[in-house]
């Protein structure tokens, strides 16, 4: 029996709408717990440490090599037009506007989003989330809200560090490999940089933090079916967070820079 294409499309659309609705409801409920006391401060700090501090090596390494390769690539391109002096500018603008937040976001989604989904998923299938409820503790308040708050606060900080390390990478290649004058490179970097470049990057980082934590918690909280279900939740959390980040990245960019 063949299923008509329309039926398949219809079913997919319905499933997509249903999913969007349930994620929106989840997000609404989570946010309502983020803004109402009590706040579990130790939980928030623990998550900030997990998201920020322990992501530093991964994000730092990504940033420094990205900065280095940016300088190198723009050199090979710009040398053709004798436009080498624009390299510091290209490096700093690409990093602060785009690559800093996007790459840090993707790295954190893989590290932290996956961990959140796995942890909450395991707690779900072993009835630990039910146990929380029986101990008069609202799971959204104790598990979801601290993760959301921590991610939204920490990702911008992480991206600032990533920006700085990336710029350092570009500087190292520029000065030691491409023969730029140290002062000139630094002056070009600072002169071209606008507040808006950095601010748009940090806004993106905060939004990405929200998306990563939301997807990690949503898929973990709603997982079922034992170890297999937790595995699926982890994958879904990382994939959906990455896609949503890239889509929202475009729209935030348009908001800031489209004239």
């Amino acid at each position, binding site marked *: 029996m063949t299923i008509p294409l329309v039926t398949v499309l219809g079913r997919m659309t319905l499933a997509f709408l249903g999913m969007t609705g349930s994620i929106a409801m989840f997000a609404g409920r989570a946010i309502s717990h983020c803004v109402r006391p009590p706040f*579990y401060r130790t939980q928030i700090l623990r998550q900030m440490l997990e998201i920020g501090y322990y992501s530093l090596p991964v994000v730092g390494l990504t940033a420094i090599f990205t900065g280095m390769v940016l300088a190198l690539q723009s050199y090979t391109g710009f040398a053709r037009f004798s436009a080498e002096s624009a390299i510091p500018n290209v490096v700093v603008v690409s990093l602060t506007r785009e690559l800093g937040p996007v790459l840090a976001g993707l790295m954190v989604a893989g590290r932290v989003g996956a961990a959140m989904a796995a*942890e909450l998923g*395991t*707690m779900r299938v*072993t*009835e*630990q989330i*039910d*146990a929380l*409820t*029986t*101990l*008069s*503790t*609202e799971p959204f308040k*104790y598990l979801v809200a601290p993760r959301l708050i921590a991610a939204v606060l920490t990702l911008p900080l992480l991206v600032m560090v990533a920006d700085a390390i990336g710029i350092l990478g570009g500087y190292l290649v520029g000065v030691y490999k491409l023969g730029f004058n140290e002062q000139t490179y630094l002056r070009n970097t600072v002169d071209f940089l606008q507040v808006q470049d950095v601010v748009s990057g940090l806004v993106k980082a905060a939004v990405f933090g929200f998306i990563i934590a939301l997807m990690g918690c949503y898929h973990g909280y709603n997982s079922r079916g034992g170890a297999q279900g937790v595995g699926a939740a982890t994958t879904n959390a990382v994939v959906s967070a990455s896609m949503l980040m890239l889509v929202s990245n475009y729209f935030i960019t348009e908001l800031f820079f489209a004239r």
Partner: protein
Amino acid sequence: MNAAPASAPRIRVRGLRKAFGPKKVLDGIDLDVAPGESLVVIGGSGSGKSVLLKCILGLLPPDSGSILIDGEETTRLSGGERAKVMRKFGMLFQGGALFDSLKVWENVAFGPIQADGMPTHEAKEVALTKLEAVGLTPEVGELKPAELSGGMQKRVSLARAIARQPAIIFFDEPTTGLDPIMADVINDLIVKCVKDLGASTISITHDMASARKIGDRLAMLYQGKLIWQGAVADLDTSGNAFVDQFIHGRAEGPITMAVRK
């Protein structure tokens, strides 16, 4: 069926139904538990005993029916109101459900600290006392749940369930996986909880010795209904073929297991 107790019941369940898809697990349950009463629920594996407890706790939404806790309807409560009602409950989950990121004593002290705002050092004292009551030393309190044996986890879970001195305690198979001596210690502990706290309890067990020891009344769940309720003393003279078969553990009888011959 016995008449409901004269005093106002702690728990009153009427017409409770719950299905998962086409599968009717609970099909019209009527149940009363009086203050200070200990009810034991027996029934075959997969008959819906755990689901019954989770419905009463509000962890699973019932399809229909009413659940009154101290006269208050709890089937349609908001989050905040639910948390308040939960203060009355303690629950020992069948699988333990210990928080594996916390130490054993932190698990036991979780309710007092997080929900009741007890200072940490005070709560730790409470936790260690409760652990002692279930036969666990303070050293065990410093371990993580994953470092304990199955039976030890069950006992920690029991300590956590009683740590807040709840008025209603549910025990889902408290003695499964324990040696006979420890099982009897736990039975005594449950009896003591009921006596000391005046708590009402519902216990699920497959262990008939335990059922006779801890229960005042017993109910048997079969195909979504409570087919027999009565005093534990009347258990042997119930005249109910299903109950007889179950308590004597016979393969032959009106209850047929879905196994391939």
